[in-house]
């Protein structure tokens, strides 16, 4: 075991999965920016144990993410919230331990919408499996399908043309923009800034329409196939897309200026739901939520798939550790995504969007697995795929970004008040569909 005692300080346990009868741990080293694969056994904390048991859970059995330590005291009771509510427009529930206004502990209850994607794809061809995988989480669909396709292509030894990979990156960045705009709009709704919220949602609708015009689907379903993309971006479309993205980027900056001039809005974000850097690392936080606490990890830079080595992406971090910091990371990421998009569209190679016939990499079939990490809008998404002898999916392991962000979310809410709940929930960008899959 190499330096694993430093886990939680400079290193972060990202995922644990089974392949070929062995347990593997995937560890992110935030100092050297390397992904380390290590064989278990690792001593896992109780909290991670709950997460890992959850990945094997059957649909219908609830997954209760209870952090250790009971809360007791005069008048403490459990306030159940969900699974049917409008504040969280998805099926998922929370137990809030409280004696009144103050939240002492939050226990997320998951698996209300577990469809069992990892088991549903078994024995299917990778192309058919893609239809399931991209419907794991509708708002992170491009990240899911890109991650799955890249892992399968790696194990098949497919030479994917650069144009296809660059087109995927364009989809990923558009997805990031529309998700960050959604978070922004929801935060404004939570602060009762209704005009501001509708403006953010209107801008988001424009991005969704861009998606549908250039990729054929508002939520980017069906854009990927194994070995390429379903539809490329011709030269003239790249040009119009660049113009549109520039307009949206400019309008967003203007919108942010309006937001930041509203003291009421800022007051609600600053100091709300703090997550310390130590907790962020120790609890395995990923994505903008981790970067808002100063964790330097972004898969686009630390696990770069093809185009991201060639284009400039800035690692956006903040040290505020609160909702404001997480929001500002997202704001800066929208801006850096629009810059990245301009570069992606400008320098995209034209060498076709489909790979040729594939040569199977012999070692990848049967025992081996290949994994891929993609930076989804809410953070690091990991998939490990194993193909069986017939080239069908033998096993699939998904480590969704939302799943590991539930415990940090719960920790950040300890000691806050009920009205902070919405701000914490939206700023972490959590999705039940994503974590339940």
């Amino acid at each position: 075991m190499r330096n694993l005692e430093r886990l939680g300080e400079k290193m972060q346990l990202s995922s644990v999965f089974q392949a070929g009868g062995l347990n593997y741990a995937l560890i992110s080293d935030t100092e050297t920016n390397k992904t380390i694969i290590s064989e278990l056994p690792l001593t896992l904390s109780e909290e991670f144990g709950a997460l890992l048991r959850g990945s094997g859970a059957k649909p219908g059995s609830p997954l209760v993410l209870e952090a250790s330590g009971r809360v007791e005291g005069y008048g403490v009771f459990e306030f159940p919230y969900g699974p049917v509510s409008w504040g969280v427009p998805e099926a998922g529930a929370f137990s809030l331990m409280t004696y009144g206004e103050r939240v002492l502990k939050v226990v997320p209850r998951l698996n209300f919408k577990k469809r069992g994607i990892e088991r549903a794809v078994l024995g299917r061809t990778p192309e058919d499996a893609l239809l399931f995988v991209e419907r794991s989480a509708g708002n992170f669909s491009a990240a899911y399908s890109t991650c799955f396709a890249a892992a399968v292509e790696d194990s098949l030894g497919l030479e994917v043309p650069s144009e296809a990979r660059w087109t995927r990156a364009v989809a990923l960045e558009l997805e990031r923009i529309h998700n960050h705009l959604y978070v922004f709009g929801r935060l404004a709704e939570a602060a009762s800034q209704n005009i501001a919220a509708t403006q953010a949602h209107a801008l988001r609708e424009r991005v969704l329409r861009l998606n549908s015009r250039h990729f054929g689907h508002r939520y980017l379903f069906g854009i990927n196939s194994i070995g390429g993309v379903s539809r490329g971006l011709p030269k003239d479309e790249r040009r119009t897309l660049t113009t549109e993205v520039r307009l949206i980027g400019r309008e967003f900056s203007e919108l942010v200026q309006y937001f930041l001039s509203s003291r009421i809005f800022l007051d609600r974000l600053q100091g709300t739901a703090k997550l310390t850097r130590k907790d962020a690392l120790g609890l395995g936080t990923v994505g903008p939520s981790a970067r808002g606490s100063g964790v330097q990890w972004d898969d686009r830079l630390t696990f770069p798939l093809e185009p991201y080595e060639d284009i400039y992406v800035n690692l956006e971090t903040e040290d505020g550790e609160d909702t404001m910091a997480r929001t500002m990371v997202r704001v800066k990421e929208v801006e850096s995504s629009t810059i990245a998009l301009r570069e992606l569209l400008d320098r995209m190679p034209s060498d076709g969007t489909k790979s040729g016939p594939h040569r199977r990499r012999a070692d990848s079939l049967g025992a081996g697995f290949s994994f891929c990490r993609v930076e989804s809008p809410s953070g690091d998404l990991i998939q490990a795929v194993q193909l069986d002898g017939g080239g069908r999916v033998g096993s699939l392991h998904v480590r969704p970004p939302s799943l590991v962000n539930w415990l940090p979310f719960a920790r950040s809410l300890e000691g806050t008040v009920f009205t902070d709940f919405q701000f914490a929930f939206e700023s972490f960008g959590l999705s039940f569909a994503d974590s339940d899959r």
Partner: protein
Amino acid sequence: MWDMPKIWVFRGLKKGILTTAYPKSQPTSEEVPTASLPPRPTDAVDWSAGERGCPTGAIDSGGKRVDLGRCVYCRLCSSAGFTFDDGSGSRAGALQAGLTGRHAAGARRIFGRSLHVMMIDVGSCNACNLEVLNLSNPYYDLSRLGIAFTNSPKHADALIVVGALNPAMVDALKMTYESMPEPKLVLSVGACAISGGIFRSAEGFVSPVGDAIPVDVVVPGCPPSPVQILEGLLLAAGRLKETGAMR
């Protein structure tokens, strides 16, 4: 440095009107993208030419009939000769919400002027949820039609159900339905709610929503675009004629 005051009202006025003209006129291709159009069989349909077959079984083996309730709009059948656009540029064919036999004739008198809607998620991928939420953005602006979202089943006239019914959500769905005051409407939105869609063979799917509670209107799509959901709501409230025009 003097900072320009940021006044939202002026900004809003500067943006002009974004809202769709639907239902006064047909939706545009921006509002109902081609990806939301149903597959249509052509004369050239040869299902055996398609390598993979229909992943949800929406197209029967003869290859001439499409069950829209099952279709996930993956467009794989385009290689077998199905087309997605009638070429006229009209989006009339995109409006495909359907009434089940249950729907009462007097709906317009009861719900025609004001409709309070609640959404329940019973196991979706979040795309349908987001499209329903999108109905309140300025592009669709639900409230101009006297339709409003509510967050309690006790206040709701209509229930929008999204997602493939999960074993963990069966009781919650029934309890929500029973909490609604009579008379009430139920819309089953998206392929997952209508038939299970792509998840009809997955472990986490129990049954179509229609088997658990009575459904009045189905809105096919994966996910249906906001205009299509809006059409379903207007249809449920008895405000559309058979032809799709406003009554």
